[in-house]
C-alpha cells in the first residue's frame, strides 16, 4: 500500500490523498496512486481552472461538439463540419525544442483524427525570449524545425500562426499547436467505451519508457532539475503517425467501431479511464498484452508511459480481426488488451492478476477542484505612464524602420517557409496575410484560420487583453472575407497558486468570454497550461485564441496586399491617442507600461460587419486590420505585400505618433476602386462606422503626411523596396548572426 509520503512525492496534496482513500474505501497501492497522480495533475484534470472555464460561452446553433471531447466541432453547412483544437507543449520544448515541438504537433493531430476527421491544417502560436540570446536562437530554430518536420511529413499544411519575442518567455517558451480537420456530420466518432463485452484494442506504436510523467512535468514550474527529468521528453515518429492516421480513418468508416481515443498525456491510464467515464462503463485490461519495445516494464510504467503514436480503439465484440486486417495493411500493430465492463471500474491486470482497481470516473473527473485565491498583482498599480513627457521623434522614417525590423512586427517568412503550407492544394490564401484561407474541394466554401494573442496587453490589463485577443482573431478572419464561427483556446499562464497569476487568469477569461459572446464565437475546445514560470519570472499571461471562420463563397476571399495603382485607401474605424502597450512605446521609446488600447465591443462588431459586407459585395481589393505597430505599419505591410507604394494624408487633432504608431483598436484599412467609394461610405454610414480616406495606392514610395489644421506636423516618406528588405529579412538576420 502507498501512503501520504508516496502521494506527496508524486505531487498529490494531502487532501487529494484523503479523497482517494475515501473513494476507494482503502489505501491505494502504488500503481493506483501513480495513476491518480497523473490524472489529477493540473494538465489532465484542470482542477485549478475548471470553475473559471465555465464562464466561456460554449454553445450556439452551429456547435456540434463543445468542450469535453478530444476536439470541438462546428457546423459549416453542406453536411460538413470543422473539428479543431489547440494544445500546448511548452515544457517539453524548453528542454528539447525539436522533439518537444514535434511531439506537440503529433499530439494535436491525433486529437483531430480521433474524432474521425481528416486533418487539413495546422497552426502554431509561439513565444520566445529575445533573439539576441544564443539559447533563445537555439530554442527558436529547434522548435520551428520540429514543427516543420512533423507537420511536413504528415502532409498537413501549416498555414498560420504567430511568433512573439519577449524576455518574459526567455526560460519558458510557449509552443502551442492547433489542428483543424474537416468531417461529415454522420462520420463523427466519440471517445467512448460503451457496450459491455466490447473489445478494447491498442493500435499503433509500441510502448516504451519514454515520456513517463509528462503530464506532471507540464504541471510544475521549470527548474534546473527539469533537465534531469529527461524521460519526460519523447521522440516523435511522424511516419508512424501518418500510417496511424490513414489506418484510423479507414477503420472509422465502419459502424462496428464504438469509440476511439488517442493516448496523450498520462497514456493508457487517461485514455482508458476517460473513455470509460464518458460512456459510464468500466474497462478491464491486462498490461501483459501491451506490445512493448523495452524489457522488464512494470505495470506502473506501462500504464503511465507517454509513448507517442498510439490509439485506443473500442470495437464491437467479434470485430477484432477486422481491426487487425486494416492495421496490417498499414504495417501497424493492433492488439486486444481488454474489454468493456459495466461496473464503472478501471481494472488493470498483469497476466490475469488484478494489480489496480479504481473507479474510472473518479480517476477521470474526480480531482477535487481548487478555488485559488485571486488578487490584483501589485505591478498593475504602477503601470501609468505620463505621455506628455514623451517627446515625439522628429525622424519618423527612422521610427518606421525600427518598427518594421522588430522581430515582433517583421515578416515571419523565415518561419512559415520551413512549413509545407501548400500541400493538399487547398491553401488559397497562404501564410503572410491576416488569416489563411483554405478551399473545401467539392463545395464553393472556404474556411479562414488564425491564432492571436497579445500577451503584453494581457499583462498590462488582463481583462482588456483577453477581450482584445478574441476581437483581433475575429478581425483577422473578417478581413479575409470570412464570418467568424468558433474559438479554440490555449490559456498559458504562470503558477496558479500565486494570487496575482490567478487574477490574470480569471480576468483574461472574463475578457475573452465577453468578447466571444458579443461576437458570437463560442469556445468549443481548448487547453490550459499553468506553471509557465521559472524561479525569477512568470510569462506574460498569454491566452492564445485560435479561430475559424467561414466563407460561403471562397472566390470572395480577400488579402491584405494593395493590388492596383490608383485604388483609394480608406480607414474603417477611428484613430485614437492611445500609445500604451504599443510596440512603438516599448521597443522604440523604451517605455514599458501604460494601458493597452481600449476595446469597445459594440464599435468592433460594427466595424467588422461593415468590412465583411464590403468584401462580400466585392467592393474592395484589399483589407487589413491595424494591429502591432499601428496604422503606419499596417499601411506599409499592405504596400510590401502588394509590391506597390502609397501616398496619403491624415488630418488630426491627436498626437501624430499615436495616430501613426498607436495601436487603437477596431480599425481596418481597405483599398478599392475609386468608383466604389461612395457606396462604401454609404454602407459605413448605415452601420454607423467611421470611414475616412487615407490616400491612394501609388507606385514608388510609402508616403504619408500627418497634418493639423492643414499644417504638416509629421511625415514618412521612404521607398517601399527599402522597407520591404528590412521587414522581410529582420528575423533571418537575427537568427543567422
Amino acid at each position, binding site marked *: 500500500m502507498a501512503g501520504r509520503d508516496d502521494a506527496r512525492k508524486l505531487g498529490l496534496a494531502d487532501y487529494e490523498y484523503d479523497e482517494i482513500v475515501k473513494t476507494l474505501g482503502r489505501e491505494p497501492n502504488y500503481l493506483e496512486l501513480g495513476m491518480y497522480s497523473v490524472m489529477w495533475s493540473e494538465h489532465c484534470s484542470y482542477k485549478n481552472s475548471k470553475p473559471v472555464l465555465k464562464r466561456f460561452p460554449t454553445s450556439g446553433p452551429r456547435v456540434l461538439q463543445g468542450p469535453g471531447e478530444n476536439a470541438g466541432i462546428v457546423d459549416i453547412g453542406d453536411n460538413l463540419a470543422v473539428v479543431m483544437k489547440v494544445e500546448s507543449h511548452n515544457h517539453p520544448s524548453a528542454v528539447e525544442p525539436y522533439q518537444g515541438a514535434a511531439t506537440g504537433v503529433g499530439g494535436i493531430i491525433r486529437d483531430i483524427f480521433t474524432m474521425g476527421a481528416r486533418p487539413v491544417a495546422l497552426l502554431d502560436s509561439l513565444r520566445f525570449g529575445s533573439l539576441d540570446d544564443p539559447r533563445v536562437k537555439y530554442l527558436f530554430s529547434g522548435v520551428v524545425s520540429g514543427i516543420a518536420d512533423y507537420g511536413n511529413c504528415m502532409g498537413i499544411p501549416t498555414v498560420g500562426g504567430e511568433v512573439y519575442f519577449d524576455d518574459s518567455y526567455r526560460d519558458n517558451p510557449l509552443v502551442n499547436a492547433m489542428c483543424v480537420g474537416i468531417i461529415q456530420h454522420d462520420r463523427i466518432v466519440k471517445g467512448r467505451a460503451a457496450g459491455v463485452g466490447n473489445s478494447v484494442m491498442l493500435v499503433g506504436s509500441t510502448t516504451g519508457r519514454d515520456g513517463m510523467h509528462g503530464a506532471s512535468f507540464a504541471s510544475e514550474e521549470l527548474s534546473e532539475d527539469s533537465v534531469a527529468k529527461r524521460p519526460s521528453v519523447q521522440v516523435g515518429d511522424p511516419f508512424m503517425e501518418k500510417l496511424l492516421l490513414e489506418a484510423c480513418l479507414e477503420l472509422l468508416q465502419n459502424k462496428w467501431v464504438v469509440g476511439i481515443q488517442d493516448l496523450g498525456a498520462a497514456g493508457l491510464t487517461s485514455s482508458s479511464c476517460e473513455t470509460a467515464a464518458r460512456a459510464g462503463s468500466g474497462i478491464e485490461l491486462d498490461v501483459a498484452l501491451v506490445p512493448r519495445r523495452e524489457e522488464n516494464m512494470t505495470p506502473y510504467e506501462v500504464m503511465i508511459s507517454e509513448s507517442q503514436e498510439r490509439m485506443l480503439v473500442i470495437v464491437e465484440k467479434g470485430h477484432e480481426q477486422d481491426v487487425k486486417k486494416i492495421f496490417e495493411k498499414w504495417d501497424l500493430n493492433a492488439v486486444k488488451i481488454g474489454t468493456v465492463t459495466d461496473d464503472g471500474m478501471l481494472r488493470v491486470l498483469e497476466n490475469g492478476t488484478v494489480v489496480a482497481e479504481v473507479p474510472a470516473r473518479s480517476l477521470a473527473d474526480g480531482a477535487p477542484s481548487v478555488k485559488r485565491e485571486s488578487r490584483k498583482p501589485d505591478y498593475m498599480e504602477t503601470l501609468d505612464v505620463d505621455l506628455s513627457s514623451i517627446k515625439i521623434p522628429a525622424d519618423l522614417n527612422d521610427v518606421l524602420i525600427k518598427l518594421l525590423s522588430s522581430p515582433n512586427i517583421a515578416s515571419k517568412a523565415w518561419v512559415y517557409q*520551413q512549413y509545407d503550407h501548400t*500541400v493538399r492544394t487547398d491553401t488559397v490564401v497562404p501564410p503572410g496575410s491576416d488569416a489563411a484561407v483554405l*478551399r473545401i474541394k467539392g463545395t464553393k466554401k472556404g474556411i479562414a484560420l488564425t491564432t492571436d494573442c497579445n500577451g503584453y496587453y494581457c499583462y498590462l490589463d488582463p481583462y482588456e487583453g483577453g477581450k482584445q485577443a478574441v476581437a483581433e482573431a475575429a478581425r483577422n478572419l473578417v478581413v479575409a472575407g470570412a464570418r467568424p464561427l468558433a474559438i479554440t483556446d490555449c490559456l498559458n499562464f504562470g503558477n496558479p497558486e500565486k494570487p496575482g497569476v490567478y487574477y490574470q487568469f480569471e480576468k483574461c477569461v472574463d475578457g475573452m468570454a465577453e468578447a466571444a459572446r458579443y461576437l458570437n464565437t463560442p469556445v468549443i475546445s481548448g487547453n490550459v497550461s499553468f506553471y509557465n514560470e521559472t524561479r525569477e519570472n512568470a510569462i506574460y499571461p498569454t491566452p492564445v485564441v485560435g479561430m475559424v471562420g467561414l466563407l460561403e463563397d471562397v472566390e470572395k476571399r480577400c488579402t491584405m496586399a494593395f493590388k492596383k495603382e490608383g485604388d483609394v485607401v480608406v480607414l474603417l474605424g477611428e484613430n485614437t491617442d492611445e500609445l500604451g502597450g504599443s510596440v512603438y512605446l516599448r521597443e522604440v521609446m523604451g517605455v514599458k507600461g501604460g494601458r493597452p488600447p481600449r476595446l469597445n465591443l459594440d464599435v468592433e462588431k460594427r466595424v467588422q460587419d461593415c468590412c465583411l459586407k464590403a468584401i462580400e459585395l466585392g467592393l474592395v481589393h484589399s483589407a487589413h486590420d491595424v494591429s502591432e505597430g499601428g496604422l503606419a505599419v499596417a499601411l506599409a505591410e499592405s504596400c510590401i505585400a502588394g509590391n506597390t507604394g502609397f501616398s496619403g494624408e491624415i488630418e488630426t487633432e491627436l498626437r501624430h505618433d499615436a495616430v501613426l504608431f498607436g495601436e487603437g483598436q477596431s480599425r481596418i484599412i481597405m483599398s478599392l476602386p475609386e468608383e466604389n467609394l461612395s457606396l462604401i461610405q454609404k454602407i459605413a454610414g448605415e452601420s454607423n462606422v467611421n470611414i475616412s480616406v487615407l490616400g491612394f495606392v501609388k507606385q514608388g514610395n510609402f508616403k504619408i503626411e500627418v497634418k493639423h489644421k492643414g499644417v504638416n506636423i509629421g511625415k514618412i516618406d521612404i521607398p517601399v523596396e527599402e522597407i520591404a528588405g528590412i521587414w522581410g529579412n529582420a528575423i533571418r538576420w537575427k537568427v543567422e548572426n
Partner: protein
Amino acid sequence: MKCAVIMFPGSNCDVDCYHACRDVLGQPTEYVFHKEKFSSVDFDLIVLPGGFSYGDYLRAGAIARFSPAMESVIKAAEAGKLILGICNGFQILLEAKLLPGAMKRNRDLKFHCHDVFLRVENNNTPFTGLYKKGEIIKVPIAHGEGNYFADRDTMEKLKARGGVVFTYCDRDGNVTEEANPNGSVENIAGIVSEQGNVLGMMPHPERCAEDILGNTDGRRVFESILQYVEGSVAHGR
C-alpha cells in the same frame, strides 16, 4: 489517358496528383497501393507523388524503391510508359536508378516551401511539349532534400543528351547561385531519362494547376503529357 498514382507509405501528395489527373485534367485515374503490382499495359501515365515515403528515413526514397509497386514501375519504364516523379517521387526514381544522380539535404539544412522560378531547358519531352524552350515559369517547391548531385561524368552525359529539363533561375531567367534554393548541381530542378519517358522534378506542378491557387504554370506539365499520349495513340505508337 489512364493515370496511376502510386501510394507509398508516407506519400502525402498522392491526393494532389490524383486531383490534378482526374479533376483538373479530367482523365481516368487510379491509386495503386505500394504492395500491389500492376501490368504496364494498364496505364499510360504513372505518377510517383511527393511526401515522405517511409518517413524519408535513411535516405529519401531509399526504402520505397523496394516496394512491389516499384517493380512494376520499373517494368513500365522499360516498356516506355510515362513516369512522372514529383519531389519524393523524384527521389525514389533516383534511388531506383531510373534516373542518374542522388539527392542530399538542402544546402542550408532547412525545408523550403515557396515559389521558385524555373527555366524550361528542354521542351522536347513528353512532359514539356507545351512550354517554350527557355520559358520561365513559377512553380512552388516544398522539400528538405532537393540538393541534386551527380558527379562530373554523369553531368556531362546528362547535359549532352538534353537530360536537364528544368533549372532554378531568377525571375528574369538567369540561372544564378542566389536563385538556387537548395544547392543542386548547376541549379538542376528536373531531369529526364535517356529514353525520355521518365521525368523527375523537385518542384510541384500539381500545386499550381488551377486558377484558384493563383498560378497555373504547372498545368501544362499535365497537359503536355495528355497531348503526347493522345498523339501517340493517334499515330498508333
